[in-house]
């Protein structure tokens, strides 16, 4: 229960920011009523730290928490409208299996402004229910407003788990919510399953050199962030419908403390976005120079794919950073990944090993890249790649 101490000076700021009208003035001090969801929005407004939400120490009643939730991140589309970031579909697909095993509902959390048109799409990827919070203050992502909304929703509806994308937005939001709600959060998961009714979260650590399985046995909801392109997307089911739960959470603009002045979208990005490409031709140190990469670009063109690079190649300046595949770059899982002159350092492997088909071309038969390749070609990529491009061109002509 939220408490207001006698430090209260009666400034009324908290009453104004409460999204649920749970705070009111009684004489010269603020009081709280039963509509309080413990969302915490008021805490930051109090200049004398009179408001407190004591933490529940020890085990919570985990049986009171039901439902697998997915936080849906929205992206700016080219036409200026919002669209669902594809990771949302991946998380719904992953959440579907978990929900089925637990016999719980799969729910999407959709926060924004004029976004209800996306609900059917979420349903087609398996959402049984969509929590919809619409408000002009929620047009763009903001840490303060979105965390207040998430805390309020979770406190009120008590899901057993919440999955977030491991993106700039997800990694900004999830730790604030988990901290406020005193629950566990596991970052950058690459695997999710159920163990004794709990969410078993698998993640790499130490730059991919080890894997760890993490549980959150005594707190709810269990929270995790998951990297894009790690979970397999289910095919959408046309005509599927979801139950819509509209929640009205008014946001007072005074709770928004960090303000965006300007957005600078990189022009080059998006031309050859490697995280969405179906085919990636990737090069490493073995490609030696920019001419080597030119060979890869020609092959990628022929296969309608993008060009990736290992960290070593990026460090050598052979490709700009957005092309980097691996732990410190982008995780990819295309249908076809062709690795040329890449030895296969662990940090690279964790970023591409979930690709459907991996073909590796390397002179060194002991290169680690062969350990993850379905097909290993021992040879010089400088000799093989141009010939392959040529052969593909000839096939097209024929």
């Amino acid at each position, binding site marked *: 229960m939220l408490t207001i101490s006698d430090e209260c000076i009666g400034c009324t700021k908290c009453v104004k920011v409460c999204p649920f009208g749970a705070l009111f003035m009684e004489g010269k001090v603020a009081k709280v009523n039963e509509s309080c969801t413990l969302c915490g929005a008021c*805490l*930051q407004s109090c200049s004398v730290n009179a408001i407190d939400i004591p*933490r529940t*120490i020890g085990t919570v009643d985990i049986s009171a928490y039901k439902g697998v939730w997915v936080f849906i991140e929205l992206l700016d589309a080219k036409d200026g409208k919002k669209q669902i970031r594809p990771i949302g579909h991946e998380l719904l697909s992953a959440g579907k299996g978990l929900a089925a095993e637990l016999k719980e509902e799969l729910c999407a959390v959709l926060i924004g402004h004029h976004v209800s048109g996306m609900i059917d799409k979420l349903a087609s990827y398996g959402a049984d229910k969509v929590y919809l919070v619409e408000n002009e203050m929620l047009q763009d992502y903001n*840490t303060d407003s979105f*965390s207040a909304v998430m805390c309020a929703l979770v406190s009120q509806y008590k899901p057993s788990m919440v999955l977030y994308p491991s993106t*700039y*937005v997800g*990694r*900004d939001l999830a*730790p*604030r919510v988990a*901290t*406020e709600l*005193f*629950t566990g*959060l596991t*970052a950058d998961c690459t695997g999710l399953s159920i*163990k004794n009714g709990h969410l078993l979260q698998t993640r790499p650590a*130490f*730059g*991919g*050199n*080890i*894997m*760890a*399985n*993490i*549980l*959150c046995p*005594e707190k709810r909801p269990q929270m995790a962030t998951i990297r894009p392109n790690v979970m397999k997307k289910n095919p959408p089911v046309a005509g599927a419908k979801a139950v819509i739960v509209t929640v009205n959470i008014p946001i007072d603009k005074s709770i928004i*403390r*960090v*303000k965006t*002045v*300007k*957005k*600078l*979208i990189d022009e080059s*990005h998006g031309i050859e976005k490697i995280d969405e490409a179906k085919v990636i031709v990737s090069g490493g140190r073995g490609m030696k120079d920019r001419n080597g990469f030119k060979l890869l670009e020609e092959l990628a063109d022929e296969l309608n794919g993008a060009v990736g690079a290992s960290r070593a190649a*990026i460090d050598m300046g052979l490709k700009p950073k957005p092309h980097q595949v691996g732990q410190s770059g982008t995780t990819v899982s295309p249908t*076809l990944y062709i690795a040329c002159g890449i030895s296969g350092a662990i*940090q690279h*492997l964790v970023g591409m090993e979930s690709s459907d*088909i*991996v073909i590796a*071309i390397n002179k060194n*038969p002991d290169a680690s890249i*062969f*350990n*993850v*390749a379905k097909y*290993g*070609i*021992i*040879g010089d990529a400088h000799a093989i790649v141009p*010939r*392959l491009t040529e*052969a593909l061109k000839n*096939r097209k002509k024929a």
Partner: protein
Amino acid sequence: MEIISLIKQVPDSTRVKVDPVTGTLIRAGVPSILNPYDHFALEQAIKLKKEHNAKLTVLSMGPPQAEEVVRLALSLGADRGILLSDRAFAGSDTWATSYTLAQAIRKIGKFDLILAGMMAIDGDTAQTGPGVAQQLRLPQITFCNELKVEGKKLIAKKLIEGGHEIVECIMPVLCTMIMPHEYHPSYPSFMSIYKAQVEKPAELWSLKNIDAEIKLLGLEGSPTRVDKIYPPVSKEKGTMYNGSPSEMVEILIQILKEEEVI
């Protein structure tokens, strides 16, 4: 202006392996370093300190040997260095770590800006910075690569999907920093190290130095549990081919056909 820089000592991660038999980390011969993201954030803090004549305090949490990174920070130019070290903090996950750091920051008292690396390279979570901000009810700006202070206002350039964003916030605020791709951390001269040792001893804080609820610390205060750790499983080796380039091209065409890529 008062700045607090949060730093962590980490093993040089790229060289850590798991013993396949015992499932424990092999740390022999692996040196400890200052987490590079924190190192970069610290350098930004030092820059701001110089520009605005600020006071810079570094705060770290870890075993006693983590004093080394606090001393490194002092040698690089921090004014005050605190290491939080107590057996009661052992086994902390990001929640308990955030809580402990936040309680220490409350004890430090006044501050305008808290800087931290976006993440530590041993855990790769990026959760502790936002966790501290939430514990302290502070606004946060994550994934920053440039900072500027104008009066009471902090202006930051931060990463967003597909580009950057310029944001601003009235201080106090907590920022987490990414680091440039070609980042060469700076290291102190012998004299700076010596002077820091003589003039600015690191303060060692235990549980007694902060006001903390003991049940929110360490393992007990950590909602998450490590079920097990293990080496990454390597996939079964695929089919290998060897031969002249033209033979290899023929085989590749065959593979692409079989896999229905072409």
